[in-house]
């Protein structure tokens, strides 16, 4: 691992004291749920129950849990395509999320989006996006809307936009940072630095590998913390969100982690060195957090195993739910495209006549 990629700022071990055992146990339960869900998703993909692209949060569990612990239900969340775990933490439900992967009518968006496009308007979970960087301008626009409608303050809404390390090289990121900085928008840009964009290491994709510094051309402050500890991540996110809410100061938060598996479920990641893969495995946040909690007596092995079993049960039920759910109605397809119906809508299946006149 390149030196530039070593976490700075708060380290995991530090912050634990003062945390209630209940909270810590809760975080662990959530991390395990994400882990179990993702492993099952990849199994279901292998069984052809899931199609298209499927990007997993394996290695990102502590970050997912910590960020979502900091984000209020009234805040807005925009994501990339690596979005399953976030959707679970935002309460979209293991069943509906799995059903979306299965492309079923009971999926979070009725089977229209699949893995990359988890969305729930009520829960202010504004979607996973597949175009790299595509979510960043709309996320910035959500912050614009908050500004448009309401005053800054501790209880003000804010936006969190999740993006990957490789995504910091696309123009939309920079235009958005400039607008957010210029207009003082309440948004936190979270960079999940898993050190790789597909097969490309950060050092080979950016001229400034300290990604938390990439706001410096826009006077946007940034911090980098270890993404392997949910408490550290949560606290960093809380501080960033506070700045956004109260000062209307956009902030960059970089979280350091590893991608445990390939870019997507179909990528064997042969391009990764043995050392790199071993280093990633050695830093697996789930066993690490488990051991930490066991050492600090928050959990004993039995309780920890019970947590795994509980998660497995939830995932089993999610799979059953998805499997037994109906396919979306083909007849409804055109209804999803436009919100306002007007004359001469092009609702036509392949091979239908183009002109139909009385």
């Amino acid at each position: 691992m390149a030196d530039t990629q070593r976490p700075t700022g708060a380290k995991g071990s530090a912050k634990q004291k003062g945390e209630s055992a209940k909270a810590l146990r809760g975080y662990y339960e959530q991390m395990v749920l994400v882990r179990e869900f993702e492993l099952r998703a990849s199994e279901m993909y292998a069984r052809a129950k899931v199609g298209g692209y499927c990007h997993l949060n394996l290695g990102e569990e502590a970050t997912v849990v910590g960020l979502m612990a900091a984000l209020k239900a009234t805040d807005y969340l925009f994501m990339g395509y690596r979005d399953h775990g976030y959707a679970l933490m935002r309460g979209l439900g293991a069943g509906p999320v799995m059903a979306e992967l299965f492309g079923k009518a009971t999926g979070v968006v009725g089977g229209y989006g699949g893995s990359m496009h988890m969305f729930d308007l009520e829960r202010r979970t504004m979607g996973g996006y597949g175009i790299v960087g595509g979510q960043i301008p709309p996320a910035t626009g959500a912050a614009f809307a908050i500004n448009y409608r309401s005053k800054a303050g501790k209880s003000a809404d804010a936006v969190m936009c999740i993006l990957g390390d490789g995504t910091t090289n696309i123009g939309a990121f920079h235009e958005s940072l400039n607008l957010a900085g210029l207009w003082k928008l309440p948004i936190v840009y979270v960079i999940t630095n898993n050190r790789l964009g597909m097969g490309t290491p950060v050092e080979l994709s950016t001229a400034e590998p300290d990604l938390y510094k990439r706001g410096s051309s826009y006077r946007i402050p940034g911090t980098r913390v270890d993404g392997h500890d949910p408490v550290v991540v949560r606290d960093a996110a809380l501080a960033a969100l506070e700045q956004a809410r109260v000062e209307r100061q956009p902030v960059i938060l970089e979280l350091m982690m590893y991608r445990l598996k390939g870019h997507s479920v179909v990528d064997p990641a042969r391009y990764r060195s043995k050392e790199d893969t071993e280093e990633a495995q050695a830093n697996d946040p789930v066993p690490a957090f488990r051991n930490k909690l066991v050492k600090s007596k928050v959990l004993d092995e039995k309780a920890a195993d019970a947590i795994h079993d509980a998660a497995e049960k939830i995932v089993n039920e999610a799979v059953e739910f998805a499997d037994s759910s109906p396919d979306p109605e083909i007849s409804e397809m055109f209804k999803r495209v436009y919100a306002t119906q007007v004359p001469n809508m092009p609702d036509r299946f392949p091979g239908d006549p183009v002109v139909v006149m009385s």
Partner: protein
Amino acid sequence: MTEMTYRQALNETLRAELKRDENVYLIGEEIGVFEGSYKITAGLLKEFGPKRVVDTPISEEGFTGVAIGSAMLGLRPVVEIMTINFSLIAIDQIVNHAAKIRTMFGGEVSVPIVIRTPGGGGQQLAATHSQNLEVWYAHIPGLKVVAPSNPADAKALLTAAIRDDDPVLFLENLGLYNLKGDVPDGEQVGEIGTAAIAKEGTDITVVSYSRGVVTALEVAKEFAEKGVSVEVVDLRSLRPLDRNTICESVRKTSRAVIFEDDLLSYGIGAEISATIGEGAFDWLDAPVRRVAGAEVPLPYAKPLERAAMPDAADLTKVINETLAASAFKGDQNV
């Protein structure tokens, strides 16, 4: 009724909608302090302030995406992209996001955004500043595309576009802004998705849209004096496309010519011609001809620009050729 220019019709409609709905705001480059490159937004910053009339940096992709995100939260942005040529920089946000967000998220959210942008050549602005790319947007599901040809339609369709819950590309044209016409007073909410018969006729149908309609009407008038009755169909809406109005007209006249400002191959006229071929096949007396721009990046020099752009003389020639091809005898129709 009040006579006003296309520019005034747009300006007054924007003012009325800003007054009507707090959620409506304008965003784009130079629309405030500068009052708009083409002065469409003149006076609006002074009247509504910087919250409702937002000047942006030169960041088409960024501010178009900002408008999209704000629309997902319920605001109703009217974006001005200075000319359609610059929309290429924002096109990923328009086509991969605004147009797809609703379907991709299962119909749970809508993106009520209007993108106003002028196209058109003829001002010697050269290759990168003279394009008509509306056909690209007209091809995209999830978008609606309107292209009014006169001040009254500009008012009615802009009002409809702002109140529509879907993303609407509102096509203007540099050559239309000073066009005068009578505009009905008071609130006018037009219908997106329907064409209009701009002039009734019996001998041949000319189909056009936006600035092309102005030329088509001039030419129709000249033919009227020669005893040829030309019907002019103004598409108004490119997406959805009102195929029935087009085909009904051609079934009546049995001849059709398309007059379009854009380029010929894969242009708007191709779809119109294909539509007529499918919907009026048994009625056609002659091949459907297209009068469109020469397929070159538009040169700067006036003689070259003029040669490359379709004009009244070109349309007249092709109408005559089409009449001849169908052995049209003027007197039969007198």
